[in-house]
C-alpha cells in the first residue's frame, strides 16, 4: 500500500548497522532521518510539492487569521508582530520554550494561546481546533528549512529529563516504550507501517490516515492508544515534556512543516 515497502526496506538495511536514533557512527555520520525519509515516494512527492501538499490549505488559512482582528481587543497578530515572514522566522524551531508568565515550558500552540488570552483578551483556542492548527502551521511554516534549535535554557533541563524517562518507560496493555519502537526498531515494519525515528520536524502534519491536519500531541496520543495506554490529555505537562525530549533528540534536523505522513 502507498508503495512504502521498498523505501522501508532500504532504510531498514541502512539502520541495521546502527543501534538507535542517536547513533553516530565512528566516522561521525549522523544516522538520524526525518519521518519523511521512511515514507513511500508518492507521499514524499506530496510533501515536497506545495501545489500537492494538502497541509498548505492550513498554511493559507493561518495566513488570513494572522491579520484578522480578534474581539474584544480588535487586535490581530499582525498588529503586534507585523509580517510573520520576518518576526516568526526561526521561532517554531525553538519550541517548546520556557514561558516567563507561566514559569513552565509551553508548546508553540500554547504560546499562541498565551497571546490570545493576554494580548487579544480572548478565550484560548481549543486543542486541535482548525484555528489553532492553522495559526500554528503558519507560524511553523516560517521555520521551514531551518535547523531545530531547542533553547539551551537551563530551566528546561529537568522537564526534558522527565520526557526522556517517559520515552524509555514501558506503558499500556502491550507494555512497550517509545524507545523500543523508535530507537530499537526504527525502519522495521509494524504491520503495514514503517516505524520512523519519531522526529517532530514536520508538525503539524497532514496525515493521510486522519484525512486531516493534526498536532504532534495528536500523534503522540495515537502512539499511546496504539499500545493500549491511557493517552495524556492535550496540553498535559507529560506531553510537553515528551515534546521537549523529542526536540533535543532532533536538534539540528531541518524543519519541514507542513509535513505529510501516511
Amino acid at each position: 500500500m502507498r508503495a512504502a515497502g521498498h523505501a522501508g526496506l532500504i532504510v531498514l538495511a541502512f539502520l541495521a548497522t546502527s543501534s538507535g536514533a542517536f547513533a553516530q557512527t565512528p566516522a561521525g555520520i549522523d544516522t538520524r532521518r526525518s519521518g519523511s525519509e521512511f515514507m513511500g515516494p508518492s507521499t514524499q512527492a506530496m510533501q515536497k510539492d506545495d501545489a500537492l501538499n494538502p497541509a498548505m490549505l492550513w498554511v493559507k488559512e493561518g495566513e488570513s487569521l494572522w491579520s484578522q482582528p480578534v474581539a474584544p481587543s480588535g487586535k490581530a497578530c499582525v498588529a503586534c508582530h507585523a509580517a510573520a515572514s520576518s518576526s516568526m522566522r526561526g521561532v517554531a524551531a525553538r519550541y517548546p520554550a520556557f514561558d516567563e508568565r507561566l514559569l513552565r515550558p509551553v508548546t508553540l500552540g500554547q504560546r499562541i494561546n498565551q497571546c490570545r488570552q493576554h494580548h487579544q483578551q480572548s478565550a484560548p483556542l481549543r486543542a486541535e481546533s482548525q484555528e489553532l492548527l492553522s495559526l500554528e502551521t503558519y507560524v511553523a511554516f516560517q521555520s521551514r528549512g531551518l535547523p531545530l534549535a531547542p533553547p539551551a535554557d537551563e530551566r528546561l533541563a529537568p522537564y526534558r529529563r522527565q520526557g526522556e524517562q517517559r520515552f524509555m518507560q514501558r506503558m499500556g496493555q502491550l507494555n512497550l516504550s517509545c524507545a523500543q519502537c523508535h530507537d530499537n526498531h526504527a525502519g522495521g515494519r509494524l504491520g503495514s507501517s514503517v516505524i520512523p525515528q519519531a522526529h517532530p520536524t514536520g508538525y503539524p502534519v497532514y496525515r493521510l490516515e486522519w484525512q486531516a491536519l493534526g498536532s504532534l500531541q495528536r500523534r503522540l496520543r495515537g502512539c499511546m492508544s496504539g499500545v493500549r495506554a491511557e493517552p495524556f490529555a492535550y496540553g498535559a505537562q507529560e506531553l510537553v515534556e515528551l515534546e521537549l525530549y523529542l526536540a533535543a533528540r532532533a536538534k539540528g534536523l531541518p524543519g519541514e512543516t507542513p509535513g505529510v505522513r501516511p
Partner: protein
Amino acid sequence: MTQRAWAAALVQSLAAATLLLLPAVSPAQGPAAALPDSLTGVPGDAARGRAIVANRQTGLCLLCHAGPLPEERFQGNLAPDLTGTGARWSEGQLRLRMVDARRLNPQTIMPAYYQADGLNRVGAAWQGQPLLAAQQIEDVVAFLRTLRD
C-alpha cells in the same frame, strides 16, 4: 545468563504474577523452560487459534511477526517468522512464550498475553484484562503446534 540468574528471574516474574494464578514453570530453565499444563484443561482449537493470530485487534501477532497466513497482507518484520514454530517448540514451551515471553527475555517487545498486572497506564478499556483469555491462549498454542514446516 547463568542457570542461577535465569532461575532468579523466573522466580521474580512469578512473584509479580499475583492477579492470574499461573501454573509453576517446569524445572527446565533457559530457552527450554515450559508451562506443560493446560491453562484450562480444555484442548485448544487450532482453527480458532489461527483466527486469533490473523486478527489484528485480537491477537496482534502479525503486527510484529510474519507467518504462513498467505491471505494476510502487510505482516510485520520485528520478530521471527512463525513458520515452523510447531517444529521448534513443544506445546509447553509455546504456552510459556504466550503467557509471558519476558520470562525468557526480560527485554522482549513481545507482550505477555496472559498477564494483567504490573503494567503502567493501561487504557481504561483494557484495565485488569490480559490480552487473551486462557482458552484463547490454548487455541493459539494448538494452532502454533500445527506449523511444522
